[in-house]
């Protein structure tokens, strides 16, 4: 495609805008805080070959290339989509690695001419099964599994599928409402693609896609090429389940402009739901690589081409069907640490101490004292996210209670309390929880919850670093470990569901980030400020 200077920029920015518009519409029409406040979704535009050409920047790296990968599976099964088709799946191995993520794809037509596709992945608040915990030992227990199928056709919605979903999930109105929001968001994205093609008189997105992909691939290759060839290693250890920690071994091989990340030697897959499918492993690996090497190169087909991510089948980071996968992020979100640590000697930008790691996802289920006035339901489920401290950077302290590597916001306490009988008794920074160092780690936080109920209630928290705190770097101290404390003194694994007495409470202590450098080198002014403000 020969374009006058400045024109490609115009077309490319329109593509990105289309994905942004799509994501904005999805967020606005979503029914659940997890989507609208926490941003657990992604949206992307594809050409008619299924190449991803633009992705909205949203809260979750976990969807970075898993959405792109799922597109191929849709194309395999539906090579000739029709106008008005809308396709759906939540199959973990074909999409983003857990049943709660629905991926919905809408083909975009101009008349009968296929222009491309728009797609989105979005976290459903429930998918049946055991709820979002590590409890299950096979994916069959984790809820409803929907293989790629049609959600809409020219005849309207696939009512049988909708009925099936409705019958198999808790809070079906919210789940179906969010599916609707995804369909609506896709429609907004599709309209933007149609307008672009019409205004610039393009036959489809193909030629534009070629340019986008070529330039992105080239930029990614240049970033890799700047690294010395060689093999770089790291290892990260997390709590895993019970007494069995998870080891992630990472080897990064740089060969010219190609980079391979190999997780050979990592722990075997678990018999609980903390297993990661390769798509999700690739997503968080790519995220770490991009932070370290090429933060400004956009996500698309081209960006992924110079990267290979491999892991032995049957390992914790490439689990075999039908492994349980619901809590996959407690392992997956540690992968960027492994990548950055391996590259630290050759990519100065990647130097950062490890932080608290995965975002803690807490699910509380129970019975209200009075049925909800609107829907008459007495049962409730509430889900909220919280984060510990991030690792120190060479020139700055870590960030306190801030989500990293995911980009998931917390839900306001007032909203949690207004929409459920959960009472948040405390939400405060944990003084002294940041690892000491020339730059200290970010602080973790303490959250104490109870429930206004007359019956026992259940809680699970996808927590980690209770036993393996974030290590420091270059002489910096480790961050404080996490904690999960029941008011009656029992000890429980937070990743598994625990029942709490009606009047009981649970305290979550989120871990701090690691420090960097010798604590003796810390600026005395910073120490004084930390003391005055009670951070240390």
């Amino acid at each position, binding site marked *: 495609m020969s374009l006058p*200077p400045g024109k490609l920029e115009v077309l490319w920015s329109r593509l990105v805008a289309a994905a942004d518009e799509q994501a904005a519409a999805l967020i*606005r029409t*979503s029914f659940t805080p997890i989507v609208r406040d926490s941003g657990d979704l992604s949206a992307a535009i594809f050409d008619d070959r299924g190449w991803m050409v633009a992705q909205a*920047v949203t809260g979750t790296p976990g969807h970075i290339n898993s959405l792109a990968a799922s597109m191929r599976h849709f194309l395999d099964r539906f090579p000739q989509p029709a106008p008005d088709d809308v396709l759906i799946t939540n199959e973990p191995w074909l999409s983003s690695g857990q049943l709660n993520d629905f991926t919905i794809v809408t083909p975009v037509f101009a008349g009968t001419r296929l222009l491309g596709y728009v797609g989105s992945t979005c976290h459903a608040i429930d998918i049946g099964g055991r709820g979002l915990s590590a409890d299950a030992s096979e994916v069959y227990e984790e809820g409803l599994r929907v293989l790629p199928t049609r959600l809409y056709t020219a005849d309207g919605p696939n009512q049988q599928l909708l009925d099936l979903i409705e019958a198999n999930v808790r809070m079906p109105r919210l789940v179906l409402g969010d599916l609707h929001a995804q369909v609506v968001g896709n429609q907004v994205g599709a309209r933007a693609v149609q307008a672009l093609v019409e205004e610039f008189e393009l036959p489809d997105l193909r030629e534009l896609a070629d340019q986008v992909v070529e330039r992105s691939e080239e930029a990614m290759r*240049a970033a890799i090429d700047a690294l010395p060839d060689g093999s770089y290693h790291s290892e990260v250890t997390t709590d895993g389940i019970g007494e069995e920690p998870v080891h992630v071994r990472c080897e990064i091989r740089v060969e010219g402009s190609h980079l391979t990340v190999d997780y050979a030697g990592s722990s075997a897959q678990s018999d609980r739901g903390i297993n990661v499918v390769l798509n999700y492993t690739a997503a968080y690996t790519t995220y770490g690589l991009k932070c370290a090497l090429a933060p400004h190169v956009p996500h698309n087909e081209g960006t992924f081409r110079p990267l290979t991510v491999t892991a032995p089948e049957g390992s914790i980071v490439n689990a075999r069907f039908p492994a349980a996968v619901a809590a996959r992020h407690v392992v997956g979100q540690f992968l960027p640490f492994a990548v950055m640590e391996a590259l630290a000697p050759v990519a100065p930008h990647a130097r950062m101490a490890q932080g608290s790691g995965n975002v803690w996802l807490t699910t509380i289920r129970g019975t209200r004292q009075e049925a909800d006035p609107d829907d008459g339901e007495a049962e409730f489920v509430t889900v909220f*996210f919280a984060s510990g401290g991030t690792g120190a950077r060479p020139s700055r302290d870590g960030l306190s209670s801030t989500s990293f590597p995911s*980009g998931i*916001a917390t839900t306001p306490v007032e909203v949690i*309390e207004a929409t459920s009988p959960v009472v948040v008794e405390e939400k405060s920074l944990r003084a002294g929880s940041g690892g000491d160092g020339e730059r200290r780690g970010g602080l973790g936080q303490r959250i104490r919850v109870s429930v206004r109920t007359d019956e026992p209630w259940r809680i699970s928290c996808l927590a980690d670093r209770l036993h393996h705190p974030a290590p420091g770097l270059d002489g910096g101290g480790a961050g404080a470990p996490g904690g999960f404390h029941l008011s009656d003194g029992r000890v429980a694994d937070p990743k598994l569901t625990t029942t709490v007495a009606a009047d009981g409470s649970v305290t979550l202590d989120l871990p701090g980030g690691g420090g960097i450098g010798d604590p003796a080198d810390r600026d005395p002014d910073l120490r004084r400020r930390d003391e005055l403000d009670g951070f240390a």
Partner: protein
Amino acid sequence: MTSWRIAGDIGGTFTDLVLSDPDGRCQAVAKVLTTPQQPSEGLITGIEQLLESSGIDRDAVEHVLHGTTLITNALIERRGARTALVTTRGFRDVLHIGRELRYDLYDLDIVMPEPLVPRRWCFEVEARVLADGTVREPLLDEEIDRLVDALTADGIESVGICLLHGYRWQDHEHSLAARLQARAPELDITTSAQVLPQIGEFDRASTTVANAYVRPILRRYLDQLSTALATLTPNADLQLVLSTGRVAPAAVASEVPIRLVESGPAGGVLAGQATAAAVGGRHALTFDMGGTTAKACYVVDHEPRLTDRFEVARVRRFARGSGLPIQVPTVELIEIGAGGGSIAAVDELRLLRVGPRSAGSDPGPACYGRGGDQPTVTDADLVLGHLAADRFLGGELVLDTDRARAALAALPTGDGTPETAAAAVRRVVDEQMAAAARMHAVEQGLDPTRFTLVATGGAGPVHACSIARILGIPRVLSPGRAGVASAHGFLGAPAGFDVARSAPTPLTELTVDAVTALLDELEEEARSRVGASSGGRRVVEAELRFRGQGGTVTVAVPDEVHHDPASALSEALEAEYRRLYGRVPVGVTPEVLTWRLSYLDTPPPNLPMRGLSGSHRSERPAWFEEADGFVPTPVVPRQDAEGDGPMIIEERETTFVVPPGARVKRHAGEVLEVLL
């Protein structure tokens, strides 16, 4: 309103003033240097100049209204009062924990905004109310004692009180404020209920402490100013322009000064609105492009769009989420990091990018010849013939075309000629601005082609027609005297106040009596803040959603709400929802979340200002996308502009570029209208 009025806009560098007669005709203009230490001094000097040059009797001035960047600057420069936060036990870290979210997913070295109140001054009280209003822990007297001791020991001047669920259950906040005030009369106290009665503790606390932080400063300033005005314009009442573009009495402004945070830009929007209205335009897209930033705002049915999502003091310019959240009603500005000084560069994707880095005014664009060697938008405009080298700022600054050409030729894009590079810069920056305006329109369900674009700012009229063409906007206006647009806009500001209340209720449970009572109460509250005569009108909007949704849809509340609120509102919701998103979900319960009421007086008359007359005429080649190259283009003064494009209207403060195929028409007051 038939009286002599003075409007003043205290900006960063200049304080602009305009005097208008009872018919709304501008009779005098003054521009004086801003006096940052004592901002009232510059304003007073300007008023004296106005009185002198117009010769009117000081007793004849009945209103002095003004907007100021004082509040914004205090927040950006952290020059506010020693401020403390008081919140519920267990939540003193509400400001420091924030949203737990990074505004940039990929920047490992990211810096987050520092809260206005350091943690050492965040205090707690035991008082605790649950979401349904159940009081679990009462407010105890001994806590007040303890708190007063702590505040006094730290020399705190101002306190923000934000208790959990205080948006709805306000008794504890009121009681705490009253009891604190009784014990410490000199303390300045802001409650969250007073500033932002809306759910979400972080945003509310942030807004509350921001108000507390600036209030002592504004009070001191207004005291000084009132004293000076008492002798200077003894019959004038002092009014301030709010971020909504409405004016309120000084007493109201000093209670909630955070509502002034965008008063300057609001004036610019009002000026655009007035210009459009003068030629019969109901819907305007105001577009102000300066040296580093472009700002746009949609005006629908003569009313600027408002938002309550706003943030100040961003750590990273133009990065959403990198500032302190301030949730007060504000004209909804679309801000883009693109101005005359924005630097063009090629990135790692070999794509041309313009801004947000800016050469500012020092060293400035390459063509300023002050040592800048990076190509900017102004350099491109010069090379394309849109600007003249010898008549920039009325010829005060002679532009160096050779330097501009050299800087552009160094850009690795196109065929290496400065002209090709300049055209590319122009395409990219125009698209960037249009894209931001389009994205906004999509989010709000607006159709840009129904709007009139009104261009102001030094660079606005240079780029306005290109942007309008990209957006499909058929009409562009250029008012005279764009340099004092904000101050002039203030003159058209209606007295008014906006109030909101969260009261989540399913539509089916609304009763006629309850709705009427609530709206009357809100009207009373707003009306008392306006302090103006009767004869105003109220505008009511409701934020509706389907139960469980986070986002809301704002609809104008129809009169039928007083007969059958449920069906009136659900029809409005469905219609708006369908317009925005195409489909309406089924089997879901519609509810109202928040009622918003604006009480507005009739806007005073405000006629467009006459341009400064000039006489220069010439012709030069200018580049146009439409012509795919350079074409001979006549250069004319405003008073002679009429007929077919291409045409360049050159003035001291700006240059209006009209492309081929467009038609120029001159209106009374010398507003230029271009039909594309």
